[in-house]
């Protein structure tokens, strides 16, 4: 995925974050979302390893080897931050206190199943905190490319890869579209400029419900 595409997705994902939110950003592209958070929003980023209130990356003089994020990168803490154990951290997560989790995805199914932790036949590195996060956060947003390297859909009727969680995804943000998981199926709510509704449907396995918002924009 090109850097520009990653930035585009990260900027769109930032719009999911409301002022006052407590947010957990997954490792990789989701971490990039932090770079684009509007200065008008006061939010707290949670890190599974025991920090609520992640700050920017440190300057060289500020580096503290005892202060890292869940991706093991050196970070800082903002005023008002707190430190705690992993048990406390996941009590926060499982207990439904995190407003939003933004995670990466390999596959998402039309019922909201998510696969993002293992590929059979490859070395399994572990699920980290993803299986806990998908059940605990009030809203789970998956950000990923719309299709895989072979051009095949990653949004499927049923995931082919082992699951991270069942019926856990609320919204999918890709380089081509924004799609909500609803009780009636997948609803296309935004189409990225340069794509048509037809393009999105052709690169998505399940039948999409087209939101009125999208239809009015296209007409």
């Amino acid at each position, binding site marked *: 995925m090109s850097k520009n595409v990653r930035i585009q997705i990260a900027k769109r994902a930032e719009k999911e974050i409301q002022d006052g939110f407590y947010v957990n950003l997954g490792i990789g592209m989701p971490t990039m979302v932090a770079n684009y958070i509007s200065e008008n929003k006061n939010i707290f980023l949670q890190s599974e390893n025991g920090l609520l209130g992640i700050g920017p990356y*440190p300057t060289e003089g500020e580096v503290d*080897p005892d202060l890292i994020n869940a991706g*093991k990168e050196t970070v800082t803490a903002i005023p008002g931050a707190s430190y*705690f*154990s992993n048990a406390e951290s996941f009590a926060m997560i499982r207990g439904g206190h995190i407003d939003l989790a933004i995670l990466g995805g390999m596959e998402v199914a039309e019922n909201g199943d998510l696969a993002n932790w293992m590929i059979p036949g490859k070395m*399994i590195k572990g*699920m980290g905190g*993803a299986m806990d996060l998908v*059940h605990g956060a009030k809203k789970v947003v998956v950000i990923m490319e719309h299709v895989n390297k072979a051009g095949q859909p990653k949004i499927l009727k049923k995931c082919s890869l082992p699951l991270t*969680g069942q019926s856990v995804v609320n919204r999918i943000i890709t380089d081509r579209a924004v799609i909500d998981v609803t009780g009636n199926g997948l609803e296309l709510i935004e189409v990225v400029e340069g794509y048509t509704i037809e393009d999105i449907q052709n690169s998505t396995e399940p039948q999409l419900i087209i939101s009125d918002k999208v239809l009015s924009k296209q007409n």
Partner: protein
Amino acid sequence: MKKLYTSFEEAVVEIKDGMTIMVGGFGLVGIPENLIKAVREKNVKDLTVISNNCGVDDWGLGLLLSNKQIKKMIASYVGENKEFERQVLSGELEVQLVPQGSLAEKIRAGGAGIPAFYTPAGVGTPIAEGRETRVFNGKEYLLEEAFKADVSLVRAWKADKLGNLVYRKTAQNFNPMMAAAGKVTIAEVEEIVEVGELDPDEIHTPSIYVQGLIVGKQEKRIERLTVQA
């Protein structure tokens, strides 16, 4: 007063072949560096190790791995280590992957006298295959049993001579739960102060959980140095 060790060799005297040990830390942050090195020196074998990660190739638990002392690793993420992959693929090392929150809670439960609990994490995934689940209020949960250890090795910032512990920043991570879940808990600390010098309001791990203490000089290696551009 708790046992104040002056040599790391002596501090790991309780660790024997075949034991289950818990080792604090997240990545390389908050690991009991010198206690791990002493376990390697002691050359005990067939260990079951419970820790969130397994170090890197030449540091942390990677030192026990390269010396082939670990029979089974229980962790949530093990991606940072080439030797780990080699031993798993060759069948030399058994691995049990546990969702990070379940791992933390299994250890917490072990120290708190709770034999098992239900959690939503893992339901419908490969880790739940063949395991007991139960529905509460229409939602399915997976039964997770508690973990205990023969010996827990933890790292703290400050201790008093009674074994009260204070952690620093994100070096706290799994250390408090592991301190409680070990039949014997040895804490490697940066500084030991006199009893009464720690503010009781600020103690993270009360002394009741700690059996032995030793002061260690920390290298505090950084796994991913990330600075502002």
